């Protein structure tokens, strides 16, 4: 198990801390080295080996990623306190992937992911209180308390879930790319669509079905494998006969990116977006990443991997430690400042959680809503004429 992590780290050597940084002309921007962060397949070009980033941008990334981390840790605690029910799949360890994608894509680009979606929901127009509020089953939660951990959606911010069935989000994501092309002027750059899925999902047949159509029809589609080395409790050695997922598109170009380095993810995704947006067809992107928690809250995460591996990853490859070190090494912040920001964010997240706990649970009547829509706008209602309830006499008849 540890060997597979070694394999991943030796291939993508950018997990070593940045060797060099050079200050740009302005003292609040610097150039960072990304050598070794990328491996390409069927591509003539590659992403740049450097990226320029401003202090503000890096601080924003740090704060956002730290908020994501605190939110997920809070979910852990709240789940154990039995304030969250059902499934709860946490994203801590993988923050750099979502943050990097968000940095490279625009709000017009469509994003769909799996059930491990709290952080993506946060990035795409969400707030901690609405995410956590949904987990607490509150009426002001993301899906009005009717979705739960796996079902967040934000149409305005082009975030399409949150999908509970492993792999099913990929054809749907390909459809989002299809719609982007359908509505674009021929020959013009198109908005892209990205579907994120795990190494566990990567062998699903419907993914190849989607990739085949995306390639045939030159859709602006990004197939993004978040390879955290495990499909639930089964390591990639045990579930994949071939685990170079970025090569799984046969002829479709692919790129493997160090997913613990948010700047590498951003630059890699910039490259991928450029490619797919301009009518070249789809691309496979494999993010090498890791999750600290088990598959879900009912999985301690230690029966199929050992604690040394988790500790090793945390101490050598943690995405938050990386961004902090980047800030400090570039002279943009010192350790004290970052510590105080962390303290501040902890307070903010706590406040958001308390706010969410004040919200009411959904009213009983809400169970009859949202079965059909009247005109497709948010919340428009078309009630079925009759909804049978467990006790027939409590059945619902649509208001006339």
């Amino acid at each position, binding site marked *: 198990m540890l060997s597979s992590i070694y394999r991943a780290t030796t291939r993508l050597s950018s997990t070593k801390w940045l060797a060099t940084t050079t200050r740009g002309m302005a003292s609040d921007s610097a150039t960072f080295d990304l050598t070794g962060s990328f491996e390409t397949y069927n591509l003539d070009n590659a992403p740049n080996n450097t990226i320029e980033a401003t202090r503000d941008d890096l601080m924003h990334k740090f704060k956002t990623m730290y908020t994501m981390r605190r939110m997920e840790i809070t979910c852990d605690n709240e789940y154990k306190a039995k304030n969250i029910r059902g499934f709860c799949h946490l994203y801590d360890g993988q923050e750099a992937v979502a943050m990097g994608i968000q940095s490279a894509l625009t709000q017009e680009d469509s994003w769909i992911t799996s059930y491990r979606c709290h952080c993506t929901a946060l990035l795409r127009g969400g707030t901690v209180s609405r995410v956590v509020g949904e987990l607490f089953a509150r009426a002001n939660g993301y899906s009005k308390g*009717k979705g739960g951990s796996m079902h967040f959606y934000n149409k305005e911010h082009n975030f399409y879930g949150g999908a509970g069935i492993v792999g099913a989000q990929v054809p749907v994501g390909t*459809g989002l790319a299809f719609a982007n092309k359908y509505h674009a002027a021929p020959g013009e750059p198109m908005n892209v669509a990205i579907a994120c899925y795990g190494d566990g999902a990567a062998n699903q047949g*419907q993914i190849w079905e989607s990739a085949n159509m995306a390639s045939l029809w030159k859709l602006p589609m990004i197939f993004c494998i978040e390879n955290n080395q495990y499909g639930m409790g089964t390591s990639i050695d045990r579930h994949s006969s071939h685990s170079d997922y970025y090569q799984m598109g046969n002829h479709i170009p692919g790129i493997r990116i160090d997913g613990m380095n948010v700047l590498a993810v951003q630059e890699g995704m910039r490259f991928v977006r450029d490619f797919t947006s301009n009518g070249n067809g789809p691309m496979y992107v494999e993010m090498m990443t890791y999750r600290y928690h088990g598959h879900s809250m009912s999985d301690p995460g230690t029966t199929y991997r050992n604690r040394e591996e988790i500790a090793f990853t945390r101490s050598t490859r943690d995405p938050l430690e990386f961004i902090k070190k980047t800030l400090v090494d570039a002279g943009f912040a010192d350790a004290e400042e970052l510590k105080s920001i962390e303290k501040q964010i902890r307070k903010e997240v706590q406040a958001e959680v308390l706010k969410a706990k004040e919200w009411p649970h959904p009213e009983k009547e809400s169970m009859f809503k949202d*079965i059909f*829509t009247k005109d497709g706008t948010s919340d428009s209602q078309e009630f079925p004429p009759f909804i049978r309830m467990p006790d*027939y006499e409590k059945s619902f008849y649509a208001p006339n």
Partner: protein
Amino acid sequence: LRSTTHYEIPKRALSLHIPDHFVTDLIMFASALRTALPTSRRFAGLSIQGSKRTLATVELSVRDAINAALDEEMERDDGVYIIGEEVAQYQGAYKVTKGLYQKYGDKRVIDTPITEMGFTGLAIGSSFKGCRPIVEFMTINFAMQAIDQIVNSAAKQYYMSGGTLSCPIVFRGPNGNSAGVAAQHSQCFASWYSHCPGLKVVMPYDCEDYKGLTKAAIRDENPVMILEHELMYGVTMPLSDEAQDKDFVIPIGKAKTQLEGTDVSVITFGKNVGLALEAAEVMATKGVSVEVINLRSLRPLDLDAILATAKKTGRVVTLESGWPQNGIGAEIAAILMETDAFNYLDAPMERVTGADIPMPYALELENAALPQLSDVIAAIERTTYRKLAA
């Protein structure tokens, strides 16, 4: 009867794919008739002279009725597109989409690889972002490959997103038995799809149903499954003046009293409405007045129509070709039991269903596995006490 005047072919007639010369001939004939008989313009129900409704009832095949509906809706809304196997260059596996590829091109009539799960999910995703796809399944049997997408990505979407994401998609294709295509190609999915909240399910019978329900489905903002019947595609039936209109839609969720009667209600849907009407004709000669209810919509079910007819006649026979266990007839039986319609029943409800077996190939076996006229009559006679139950 040739006239030298040139008549402009009304566009609507063309969209029904009636050959041009037929329309011209009809108009010329009508015009000649009008000249010959200078009475009311509405002679013999023909309304002529440049009004939109230039034709009265026409006869066309179910296939052409569906084609007209698809064509009209594609013309009306640029976001509507058709996707499926062989829908474009092949002109449709059953020729239902004939001519549409020539008219609308690659962008809007799309041939797919044989990957139902993939293209169904793709269509659903596109419907979240401004498209209105019509997914054709070569047969609904193949939709089973995509049933996860249909139920989990489409039907449940609006609900689990708390009213955020709706899915204006249509799934359509031939459902149920055909002729000798055996077990894997003959299943009726009426029960499976009408089981799911969030999905609308319609099953048309005649040309009017096919045209009106298909248009309603395409205009509906919710996912709709249209269960067609392959053996009906070639059947020619009348399409009324009203139903020829480009904005003629049949509301989903409302049944039709296909035939009014007083002694017994036969509640059915799809192709079997024809069988019920045949049975009604036979029973009329025996002095039994049969009311035939064409459900049209399986989800939502028209509860009011079911209860009204049961209370009116007091005797109910349901008719379906699908498997009996957990079928539509079973649902209607439960409805009759749990509502006050029970108090109006003068006899137990009878179900006529397909046999509880996978569909066999041999003709005699296939016929025996499907409801025949004699089966419907037997059920009617039992429930009207014309014949004692065995």
